[in-house]
Every structure is written in C-alpha cells, then in structure tokens.
C-alpha cells in the first residue's frame, strides 16, 4: 500500500481522535434540528469503534464531523491532534484526503471505472499516474482475493459484497490513519456482511490506524473493540461487544 507524503503523525500516547461537547444543528428557527447535543468520545490507535443506535440518532452526522465533512457548531474536536476549525476549507480537504479513508453505505463506486480503477482513485487524487496507481490497487485487491477478471469488471458486474471489498480497498489504499465507515453492511446479506467486517479488521485496522464504523446492524457488533451507543444526538453508553465470536 502507498503512504501519501505529508501524513500527520499522531502525538505519542494520545488518542487518534478526541471530541468533547460537540454539537451540530441543521436548519434555523422552527426548522432547526439538533443532530448532535454534546458528544464526548475518544478513539485510540488500533481500535475499531462502532457507533450504534437507531436511525436519526446522529451517527452519520457525528462521523461527518469527525471526518471534516461537516463543520461542528460547538465543542472541541481534534483528529491526530489537529482541529478542523484551525484549517481553511482547502486545508481540510487536503487533510481529509491524506489522513482519512471512507467506506460508504451504498459503496458509491464510480460506475464507469473498473474495480481496480475505483480502488486507485485516492492515489490518483493525490497526483499519482493512473498506471502506477492501478498497479498498487491491483496488489491490494489481490490480497482481498480478487482475480484479474473481477478487477477489470465494472461495479455493475460485481456482487454487493465484492463492491464493498473494492470500497474498502479504496478507503485504505493510501494508508490513512482513520477510516470511517457509514453502514458498511446494510446493503449486504448476513454472510457478506461478516466477510466484509472480517476484511476490515484484517486489512484496515493497524497499529497506528483506527476504524469508526456506523451501524445499526446488531450482527456485526461482535467485530468491535468498543461500541458507542447513541440516542438523540448523544453517546449514552460505551460498552464492550456483547459476545465476542470474532477471533482475529
């Protein structure tokens, strides 16, 4: 995998991610919806944290704030010791591109690109030549048991589980220190969902890397190191997985 230059080094002994009293409100006046009402949380290196809770409780808003996709209203939030509020929009985009990987609920692979090209997109964004980037992507996908035919297929020719594996490869190809996943298994059947989570633990987690996974899929909670339960814009409980079936 490629390490992009200018990656931020997390301060030693510090959590990768730390939030305190984070709030976020959509809209104004009577139409205002308070999505986050003072969230406190920490994510450590090498940890897989799951954000669980009912729909509308603020999980996606929280990871959007953590990933710098949405500005928070109040509170403190530092990612690798950096605060988005101290960055310009351009710096935030660059920071996000280098240090954070994304896995989206609907995979969101670009339909006109092959699996290997989709996986290579973050490297291309960072200026790598297409041929070089796809060579790296090919290696990553090979590790994920993709054969040549699958690698050169368009997303429409892949199953849901295969598409999500491409999305995972895309999220980690540039070795970001934080990967955020929004409902990565919601579009998959139980078996595929488990395989995807196994892959994520195997490939995406690392000594200096953390995963934050938003889910309301109770079947995958066992893959978490910690589970943050959310309700009405707050983290109401942080717990260990109920029953650890997954053995790395």
């Amino acid at each position: 995998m490629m390490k992009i230059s200018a990656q931020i080094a997390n301060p030693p002994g510090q959590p990768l991610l730390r939030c305190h009293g984070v709030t976020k409100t959509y809209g104004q006046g009577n139409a205002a919806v308070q999505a986050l009402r003072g969230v406190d949380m920490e994510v450590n290196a090498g940890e897989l944290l799951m954000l669980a809770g009912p729909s509308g409780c603020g999980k996606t808003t929280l990871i959007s704030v953590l990933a710098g996709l949405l500005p928070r209203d109040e509170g403190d939030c530092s990612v690798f010791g950096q605060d988005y509020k101290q960055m310009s929009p351009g710096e935030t985009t660059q920071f996000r591109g280098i240090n954070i990987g994304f896995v989206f609920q609907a995979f969101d692979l670009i339909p006109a690109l092959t699996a290997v090209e989709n996986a290579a997109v973050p490297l291309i964004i960072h200026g790598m030549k297409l041929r070089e980037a796809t060579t790296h992507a090919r290696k990553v996908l090979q590790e994920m048991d993709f054969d040549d035919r699958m690698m050169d297929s368009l997303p429409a020719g892949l199953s849901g589980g295969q598409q999500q594996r491409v999305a995972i490869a895309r999220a980690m190809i540039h070795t970001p220190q934080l990967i955020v996943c929004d409902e990565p298994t919601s579009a998959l059947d139980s078996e595929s969902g488990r395989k995807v989570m196994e892959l994520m633990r195997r490939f995406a987690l690392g000594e200096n890397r953390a995963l934050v996974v938003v889910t309301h899929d109770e079947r995958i909670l066992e893959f978490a190191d910690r589970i943050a339960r959310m309700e009405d814009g707050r983290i109401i409980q942080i717990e260990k997985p109920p029953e650890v079936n997954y053995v790395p």
Partner: protein
Amino acid sequence: MITIALRMLSGDRTKYLGVLFGITFTSFLVTFAASYFGGMMTRSFALIAEYPRNDVWVMDPAVRGVESTMNIPDSALSRVRGVAGVQSAVPLALATATVRFPDGRFQPVQVIGVDDATLTGVPPVADGLTAAVLRTPNAVVIDPGGTSGKLETPRLPADQWPYGRVPVNAPTRPLVRGDELSINDHLVRVAGQSKALPRFPPRPLLFTTFSTAERILPPERDRTTFVVATARPNVKPAELAKRIEQETGLRARSAKDFRADTVHWMMVTSEDVGDAVTMLSIAILVGFGVTAVMMYLFTNENMKYYAVLSAMGATGRQLFSMITAQAALCGLLGTGLGLGVCTLAGLAFLHYGFPFRLMWFAPLLGGAAVVLICVVSAAISIRPVLKMHPATFLAGR
C-alpha cells in the same frame, strides 16, 4: 483526474451523446450558415471575379458596390485611357431590362454590354463557341445567373409569337441558339449560352455588345456604368486607381478593393445579412439549450460521485478541471463532427447550385460558438459541484 472525468462522461452514453449532439448541431449550423453567407457574398461580386485583367474599376463617385450602380458620362472612357499608367480601358454597361419570350411571358434580366472591340468580360460560351458570336447583329448570349427554368421558350413553333393570343400555358423548353427574344420591342437572337458565375441575388443574365445594349435599352443620357482599366506593367492597381481618381474626378478602385466594397455594401444594406445573423443566433441558442441542459443533467446525476471524490480529498480545482475536461472533449469532438457534417452538406448544396463557400472564418465562427457554449455550460454545471457539501450526499441524505 482527467481520465476519470472522461471515463465518467463516456460511461453515460445517453447524456454524452446528447451533449455531443448539441455541440455538433451548433458547430454544423453556425459553420454552415457562415459558409452559406460566404457563398452569397462571393456571388455578389461575381461580375468582378469573372473579368480577366480587371485591374481598376472606374465608376460614379457615389457607387459603393457592383450591385448598386449609377452611369457615368461616356466620355469617361477617353479620360481614363488618357491617364498615365493605363494600358487599356474598356466600357461596361449594366442595366436591368424586361425580356419578353415568344409566348408572351416576360422576365427581368440583367443586360451586360461589353466592349464591342475586345468583347472583354463575356464568360466562356457553351458548345465550343466563343464571345465572337456577339459580333453578329442583335446577338445576345444568355446565362441563367444562378437561376433555373427562367429562360424558356415555347416548345412548338406555332406557339412562338402567335398573332392575337398569349399562349402562356404552352409547354416550354430551354432557350437555345437561334431563339428570339424581345427587349423594348427590339428583337434579339440568342447566339449562345454562357457559363457565368452564379449571381447573388440570382437573376438571368444577357450578355451583348455595348453598342447593341445602347440600341435595345431605353435611351439614357449616359450608358457607361463602369470603365474597366488594365494597368501597365510595374504599375500597381491601387496606385493607378488613385491616379485615375485625381485626374478624372470619378471613383476608381482596384478589383480587390472593389470586391471588398461590394461585400461591405451587401452587409450594410442587405436583408440577407440579417437573416444569416438570425440563423446563427437560433443555432447558438438551440445548441446552448441542448448542451447546457444535458451537461447540467449529467453533472447533477454524478453529483454523488463528485461528493465521494471531494470526501476523498479531491480539491475544488480538481473537480473544476474534471468538468472542464468533459466540456472540452465534447467541444472538440462536436466541432470536428459539425465541421465534417457541414462539409458534406456543403458539397450536396453545391451540387444543386446553392451558394456555399467554406471560407477561413466559417470554422472559426463555429469554433467560437462551441467555445462559448461549452464555457457557459461548464460554468452552469460546475457551480453546484463547487457549492456542494460532500456530507449532504452521504448516507442517503
């Protein structure tokens, strides 16, 4: 990123073809309209173009084009011949007359009276004949001048010049050598048919000698419309024109300048220019509408993917370059296709005698229209991409 952008574009074939169609259509229509206009303008100075060794045209000081003329005194010919640097000079008479055919029908024609001695200015005559056929009394050489079916005579001799009736519905045939026509109650005989350059506006032409023209046209104080002079070797036409102007008080223009004057006069006074501009405007508007809407729809449908790219670190400049590349590719392909279609259509139009001339400015105009459309379409499409918030498109928001 450019490769990704182009793959995204070509991946959505319907919209890609829609954008391409819009741009091709615009490029074609603008280039075609400009070429058609170029063809019309070229035909407007056909009389000048078909004159051999026509270095300087001398005319009334108020004349600004070959299409709007005023006669000058016949003595002008001698005065021009007396100017130093003139090798030769011939008179040219232009007039509009109404020709009556043997069945009683009539047709306005342009009478062109050329120098009796040299017969300069008569275009090539068909059937292996020469301009010398005009030396027979009352001879004329006819030419369709870009028209068709306007120079016909009754097929049956019985229907020609019948006494006491006008057989306007009698079957006709094209005029041939030996047929007779009446102009101002003067009978003239068709001595041949020429292959002159088509005129704009199109009208039948009737070439004859200056003296015959004087005889068959209604009497006027002055009959000479132009004096066409040839410069001596080493005398530049523009220089000679200045000299003639100074010495005769008439307007004198080199052939090149007179062509330009004629085109300028046409552009200023002709309604056809307005029609061409209207056609160009409609072409640009239609092309703009189709292209901009398709491009906007394409970008809008791909907004989710632009959001994903933005989330993954693509900067506004990168997204801008992607959409610009998409517009540029469509623009390039559309311009090329439009130009190709225009050339093919032009060849077909030329075959059927329509004015079409693909001049240097026509593809430039087509290209400029395409650039304008692409820039505006891209600008309309880019705006929402640069304004979007990637989080809006995540998790089905």
